[in-house]
């Protein structure tokens, strides 16, 4: 099994590479088969992991940076891996049909497959750095996928919003993870959990924890960061079903659950998660009632579910861990089904507005049946698994150590709203009066309804036999989350007790709310309070202010005058050198007698001086360029006579090329004219030149005054032949000892060539117009 873990992680990436070179229809098949294979592989571990064992494998370690890498499959990873690959397979199957004929189909599938690999990597990683890398890949994939419709400004804006919010949170997360890693003395997640005391006793334990929570909250769309999730609905529906409901937004939940054994007893952890979770759940429920767009309603109910999960992680009793893991499965099953069904309705009717749809039952019976099944699970009615989840939720709130009443009321409101929305999404949509639609609706190809039907049916199966998922999936996952073996018994029927009464009351209240939806919904959508008070507005103004600020700064420093840039560069360099010399009292010069020693090689320096003076006082640009050439060639002569033939050779070649290029390009460049600068400007430029030149001279004199340290030269001279088999030390340093530097330099060269080519091409286009 150990060898299979890297396969599980890399399958998505390998699939993506393969899909990039085949046709779109084959890409969909490859993706679905890859995901299904991963699902089978992961499912094969159920027996092993179910008895509390973990599977470990080495993966991507960087010892020089202290990164251990490694993958681990335990109960918590397994539940996520199964959801990611299982729902992934269905979504890929669905996308093959949903995006058929769309030119972007293959691209979407490739990114989705990359995303799947990154998700699996994130939940299997046993190393915080590895986890973070995969975490960020999912954010990037989400950016690309939300912006699929790149010609649509709203989609681009939504993609950027998702990226900035989750990416900003990612930075906080990275900081938090690094702090925790430092406190624990290891980057391994199992190591951090084992070093729990050290992590908690560290002086920065609290900020580290809050940073991690912040990162998880942005990823999992908790209040006040929830606003990016509804906006992300600009993505194609299969993407929304996969990323923004079933998997990616659960990554924050995953990490909170993963680190729960470290922080579970911390009061701050408990209260922050509980209250933010409750606030998110209620806000999502209320906002969902406002919406009439099918996908927006689903997005806000997802926010609610994410809030509920965070709330459950925050609650201390063991039963809440069971509740969290059960609800995770419950929600993934019904919500993915609903999203895929929403896509079918949108696809087949051309309408996504709830108020303009109704009575679709006759036209699309299979779709309607799946929606009813999913809705019953969402509403938490027996014998669906949603019922089991809801009972556990109530049980957790009742056993909570603090705020029991408030939690119970909040939970009741949220659950009743979910009942009402489940009713809206099934009854209003498919029954009741038939509304006219632009397209004639009918049931889609089986690949599209297969997924939602299967998911909704699983909700019924799991509800009928809750011990099935209870023992195999929930128990091992809850044990990991608690840090000790959990006592899990999932039952559909607990007898007549308070919980059942609560459930009945919830359904009744939900029914009333559903009946009133038609009247309540327009009032809520008209209320402008939500727009004015929402954090989305704060995001918008922050973004606008940042851009305006950048524009102001850019306008100031990027003035577009080449001469101005050069002045800034030279002055900065010169003043920095002089300042350092002044501060460190480094002014020095070699003794006078050394200055007077006569050397025939000084003639070359005379040439340089003449060339420099001629450049400064040349009347035309052309004359200045030729004079500069003189400086260059004379410098080459200096190199030659001082025993650096390589450098001299290069200098000659460069100077020759420069002269030829300038001669060839001279017709078009404005260098044939005379120097048109006014006298004050000339004086200013001269002053800049004097400061910079003076600074360099002072530095060189100081260097000459110091004792020459020959160690480096001697070492390279000795090691050149012995270690690198080369007698040309300069070349050996370039290609062997300092090969990485050279690699960086040639990269810079290549990049600047790209930039120059692009600039010249842009200039050409402009002239062509």
């Amino acid at each position, binding site marked *: 099994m150990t060898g299979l873990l890297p396969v599980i992680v890399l399958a998505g990436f390998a699939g993506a590479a393969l899909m990039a070179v085949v046709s779109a229809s084959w890409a969909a098949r490859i993706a679905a088969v890859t995901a299904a294979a991963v699902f089978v592989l992961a499912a094969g571990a159920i027996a092993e992991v179910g008895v509390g064992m973990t599977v470990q494998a080495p993966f991507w370690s960087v010892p020089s940076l202290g990164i251990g890498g490694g993958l681990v499959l335990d109960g918590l990873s397994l539940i996520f891996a199964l959801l990611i690959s299982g729902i992934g397979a269905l979504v890929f199957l669905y996308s093959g049909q949903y995006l058929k004929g769309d030119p972007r189909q293959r691209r979407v599938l490739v990114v989705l497959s990359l995303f799947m690999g990154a998700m699996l990597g994130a939940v299997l990683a046993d190393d915080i750095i590895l986890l973070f890398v995969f975490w960020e890949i999912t954010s990037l994939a989400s950016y690309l996928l939300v912006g699929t419709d790149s010609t649509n400004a709203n989609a681009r804006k939504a993609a950027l919003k998702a990226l900035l919010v989750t990416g900003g949170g990612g930075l906080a997360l990275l900081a938090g993870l690094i702090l925790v890693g430092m406190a624990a003395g290891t980057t391994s997640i199992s190591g951090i959990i084992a070093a729990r005391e050290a992590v908690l006793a560290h002086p920065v334990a609290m900020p580290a924890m809050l940073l991690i929570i912040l990162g998880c909250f942005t990823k999992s769309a908790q209040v006040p960061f929830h606003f990016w999730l509804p906006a992300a609905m600009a993505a194609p529906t299969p993407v929304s079903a996969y990323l923004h409901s079933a998997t990616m937004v659960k990554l924050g939940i995953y990490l909170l659950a993963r680190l729960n054994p470290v922080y579970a007893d911390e009061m701050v952890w408990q209260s922050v998660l509980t209250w933010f979770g409750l606030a998110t759940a209620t806000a999502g429920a209320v906002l969902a009632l406002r919406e009439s767009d099918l996908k927006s309603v689903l997005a806000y109910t997802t926010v609610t579910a994410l809030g509920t999960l965070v709330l459950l992680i925050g609650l201390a009793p063991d039963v809440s861990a069971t509740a969290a893991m059960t609800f995770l499965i419950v929600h993934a099953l019904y919500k993915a089904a609903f999203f895929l069904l929403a896509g079918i309705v949108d696809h087949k009717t051309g309408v996504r507005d709830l108020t303009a749809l109704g009575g679709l039952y006759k036209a699309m019976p299979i779709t309607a049946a799946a929606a009813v099944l999913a809705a019953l699970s969402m509403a938490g009615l027996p014998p669906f698994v949603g019922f089991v989840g809801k009972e556990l939720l109530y049980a957790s709130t009742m056993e909570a150590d603090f705020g029991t009443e408030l939690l119970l009321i909040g939970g009741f409101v949220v659950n009743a709203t979910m009942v009402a929305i489940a009713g809206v999404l099934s009854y209003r949509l498919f029954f009741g009066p038939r509304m006219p639609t632009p397209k004639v609706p009918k049931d889609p190809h089986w690949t599209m309804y297969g997924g939602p039907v299967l998911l909704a049916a699983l909700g019924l199966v799991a509800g009928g036999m809750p011990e099935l998922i209870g023992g195999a999936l929930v128990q091992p996952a809850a044990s990991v989350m608690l840090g000790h073996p959990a006592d899990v018994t999932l039952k559909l029927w607990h007898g007549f007790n308070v919980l059942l009464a609560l459930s009945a009351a919830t359904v009744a209240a939900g029914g009333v709310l559903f009946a009133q939806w038609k009247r309540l919904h327009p009032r809520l959508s008209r209320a402008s309070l939500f727009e004015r008070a929402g954090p989305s507005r704060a995001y918008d103004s922050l973004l606008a202010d940042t851009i305006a600020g950048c524009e102001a700064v850019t306008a100031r420093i990027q003035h577009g005058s080449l001469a101005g840039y050069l002045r800034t560069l030279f002055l900065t360099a010169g003043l920095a050198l002089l300042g350092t010399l002044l501060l460190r009292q480094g002014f020095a010069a070699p003794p006078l007698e050394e200055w007077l020693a006569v050397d025939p090689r000084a003639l070359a320096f005379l040439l340089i001086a003449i060339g420099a003076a001629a450049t400064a006082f040349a009347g035309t640009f052309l004359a200045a360029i030729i004079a500069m050439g003189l400086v260059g060639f004379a410098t080459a002569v200096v190199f030659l006579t001082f025993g650096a033939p390589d450098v001299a050779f290069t200098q000659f070649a460069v100077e020759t090329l420069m002269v030829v290029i300038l001669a060839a390009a001279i017709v078009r460049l404005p260098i044939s004219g005379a120097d048109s600068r006014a006298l004050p400007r000339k004086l200013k430029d001269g002053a800049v030149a004097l400061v910079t030149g003076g600074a360099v001279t002072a530095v060189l004199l100081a260097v000459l005054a110091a004792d020459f340290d020959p160690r480096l030269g001697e070492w390279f001279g000795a090691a050149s032949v012995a270690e690198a088999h080369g007698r*040309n030390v300069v*070349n050996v340093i370039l290609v062997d000892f300092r090969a990485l530097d050279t690699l960086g330099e040639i990269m810079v060269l290549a990049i600047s060539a790209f930039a120059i080519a692009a600039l010249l091409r842009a200039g050409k286009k402009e002239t062509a117009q």
Partner: protein
Amino acid sequence: MKPSLILRTSAPILLFLPLAVSLYVLLRGHNEPGGGFLGGLVAASGVLFFAVARGAVEARTVLRVPPIGLAAGGVLIAMLSGLPALFAGDGAYLTHLWAMEPLGIPLPLSTTLIFDIGVYLTVMGVACTIFLALLRWQEDGPDAADPAARPTNPQA
């Protein structure tokens, strides 16, 4: 103004002589003055002479591959030359491997040379990209006498 007939006729020599020299410079670089950087510059000057004699378009045709592709390929080769070391020796990237007598022939070969070839191609590609672009810009440009058609600075 067209370059003289003599210049145009001798263009191939002006191209191939520096190219041959550049290869020599490249190969001797490890022990004598030379190497990939210098070789690349010499090779580029050959292409430049040819371009001056026959025009940028023809020089581009003679090169067969786009010069920017040479540069990118050079960087790629240099990067790849460091990979074998990951699977041999002490496993550090860009630690060069040597075969002093491959197949019994006393001809020292190494990944150093591959790296240097990468440098050679990059330098040649970059230099060719820049001056061929400049030359094209000059050749294809509008009539310089028409001030309205001159390239203008978008910021100005």
